[in-house]
């Protein structure tokens, strides 16, 4: 069983309240940072820790922080991206729901490091009940002098505001998030300028995922070097994985990076294998936008080495035979699941969530959805499969924000690894539909 740095106390009764959280060592990082460290020293620790952004892109957090422009007399902001909308990912919700004070503690320490005096938590609109939990926790933090003026007598002031979004996937993209936070339509901005130079209300801004901000707490408490010792190479520390799909024990797990995928799926401490005695068919290791892996590439890489839960190992083989760690939304499919149907489902999601600003994404996602609908429902042709590949190539990389890539990759990977299944849907549509186990109609009697 690996060490838990974030959610160790998640199931302690009453941990959402300030007193209980404090009793379990809470807010130690705020005391340590504000009383004994300079802001730059905190940034230095985070750099040393090798922490990489937990929202999906895996960009080193410390480096992101050091890019923040610091012009004289201009306010800076830290914005926490709690708009967790990636299908298959639910770690941030769990963390905020169980340990609201951990996020607030991370926000205070990180804001101090960045010199932000007003910080924001932008939370997904569907998480209304989590918003209330956070608001209650923030009120407690204010009442206990952790937020507001002159925190712990250090002379550092911080106001923390939590704002709900309207429930749009696109608002998880950092610049769309900032637009939405400013009260505008959530359309991603053109880059450059990057938020680190011109972000919220034109001020330099850092946008970080909930888990990245929470991870700052153990980094400050134990030191960046100690944190960097966990994990392998450039994948340091622990990561929350949201395991879902046909598993015996799905749920949120905190793992040390470097755990083998096999151990994670089949291990007794983790998911305990595939449910109902079925076999593994495929796995999406990092949320719906990363490429799907067929069963023979899940636990082993194409080169035959063990696949590990790290940024590098999951990406081993590039897009030909690898995937990405992404946001850690680990979705497992058993042998009964239809890849075509699943791909259509994802395509439908992206078509629905595209903001409609740039042409390739607006028209391309909708087009892919319609073609996949036809394939899934037995009205497709073999040309449709190559058409999908073509559309894919025309979307990928040509859009303003990464939503276009996120929509294109899963379709490309599904066709790459499961082309036979797509062809089967074209050649014997009747059989393909009835084998969808009652999703369209009841399965045939044996």
């Amino acid at each position, binding site marked *: 069983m690996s060490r838990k740095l974030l959610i160790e106390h998640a199931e302690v009764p009453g941990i959402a309240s300030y007193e209980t959280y404090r009793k379990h060592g809470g807010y130690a990082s705020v005391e340590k940072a504000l009383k004994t460290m300079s802001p730059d020293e905190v940034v230095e620790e985070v750099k040393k820790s090798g922490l990489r952004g937990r929202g999906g892109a895996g960009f080193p957090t410390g480096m992101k922080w050091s890019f923040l422009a610091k012009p004289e007399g201009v306010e800076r902001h830290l914005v926490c991206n709690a708009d967790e909308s990636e299908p298959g990912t639910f770690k941030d919700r769990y963390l905020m729901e169980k340990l609201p004070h951990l996020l607030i503690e991370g926000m205070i320490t990180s804001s101090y490091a960045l010199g932000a005096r007003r910080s924001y938590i932008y939370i997904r609109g569907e998480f209304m009940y989590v918003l209330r939990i956070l608001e209650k926790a923030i009120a407690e933090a204010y009442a206990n002098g952790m937020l507001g003026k002159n925190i712990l007598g250090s002379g550092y002031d911080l106001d923390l505001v939590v704002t709900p979004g309207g429930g*749009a996937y*696109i608002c998880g993209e950092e610049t769309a998030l900032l637009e939405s936070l400013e009260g505008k*339509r959530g359309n991603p901005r*053109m880059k*450059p300028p990057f938020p680190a130079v011109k972000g919220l209300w034109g001020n330099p801004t850092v946008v970080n995922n909930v888990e990245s901000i929470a991870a700052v707490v153990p980094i400050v408490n134990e030191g960046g070097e100690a944190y960097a010792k966990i994990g392998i190479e450039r994948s340091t520390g622990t990561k929350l994985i949201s395991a879902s799909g046909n598993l015996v024990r799905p749920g949120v797990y905190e793992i040390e990076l470097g755990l083998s995928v096999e151990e994670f799926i089949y291990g007794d401490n983790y998911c305990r294998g595939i449910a109902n005695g079925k076999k593994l068919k495929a796995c999406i290791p990092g949320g719906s936008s990363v490429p799907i892996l067929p069963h023979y590439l899940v636990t082993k890489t194409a080169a035959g080495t063990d696949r590990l839960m790290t940024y590098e190992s999951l990406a081993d083989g590039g897009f030909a035979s690898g995937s990405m760690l992404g946001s850690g939304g680990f979705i497992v499919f058993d042998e009964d699941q239809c890849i075509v149907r699943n791909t259509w489902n994802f395509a439908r999601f992206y*078509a*629905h*969530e*595209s*903001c*409609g*600003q*740039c*042409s*390739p994404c*607006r*028209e*391309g*996602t*909708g*087009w892919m959805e*319609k*073609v996949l609908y*036809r394939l899934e429902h037995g009205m497709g042709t073999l040309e449709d499969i190559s*058409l999908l590949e*073509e559309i894919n*190539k*025309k979307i990928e*990389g*040509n*859009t*303003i924000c990464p939503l276009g890539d996120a929509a294109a990759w899963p379709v490309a990977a599904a066709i790459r690894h499961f082309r036979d299944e797509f062809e089967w849907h074209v050649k014997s549509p009747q059989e393909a539909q009835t084998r969808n186990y009652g999703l369209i109609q009841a399965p045939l009697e044996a």
Partner: protein
Amino acid sequence: MIKVTIDDVEIEVAPGTTILNAARQAGGDLVPPAMCYYSKLPGTGGKCRTCLVEVAAGSTADPRPMPKLVASCSTPVMDGMIVKNKTSERVHNNRGGVVEFLLVNHPLDCPICDQAGECHLQDLGYEHGSAKTRYREERRTFSPIDIGNKIKLHMNRCILCYRCVAVANQLTDSRVHGVLHRGEHAEISTYIENAIDNDFSGNMIDVCPVGALTDKTFRFKSRVWFLKPYEAECACDKCSGKAVVWMFGNEIFRVTARKDKYGEVETIEDKTAWICNDCRFDKKDPSNWTLIGPRKIDRHSVISQGKYATKNDNNPKLLH
């Protein structure tokens, strides 16, 4: 001044210039097409993706190529940057893809569209489109609506360039229209059927790159290529009064602003010569105007005679 090479042509431009504007300074065939960028309207650009170019070398200091194609309208040039537009196969392919996307939900009703002949999408379709569509699905459709008493909106033809939104934001006091919904369902509309009623709303028609916004005083009156454009002037207390009147015989069929070869309203005496609605919609009598002389239309356009004739002959793809 910094040096940048676009399609083997070296030019010097001021720092901070975008690739597209640098290409426009060089002029000629190497200028990428732009459907959403409008140099007179700050904040536009980046959306249509037709101006994508390949950056083969980022700058002298960092000569690595950029991995993705970049939108030339919103990417600033760096010293020593090498850009490929016309000379890049990748750009050609992907621009074709973008045009295909733009046409996926486009009704292709050019024969009855007032914009035909001066439509940017039509030009792009000729240059990059294929003769047959691969789109088998039903197209998204909307009914045409009146936005204001002089402007008709055909949402079916719209490519969501957001230029008209920028006009309303920047030229008029209050904006009552914008984009509703998202993705494929996104549409330009007025909020709760408000009417657009202000002196400069007609400029939305001029900036629209396609036939989505049309002039109700001109709709279906004549094809643009049957009309003769004249530069004309009038005394107007609201705008510059410098316009182009489109005539047939002694009759004025429509009035537009003076547009340059990129379809943008010209700058006259350091001011963008937007025209007001009175000049555009109401002054249809020749006595209202002082004619200066014939206006030369030098824009890339389907109506520029002969421009596409040879291309069609050499392009078997278009002969089907």
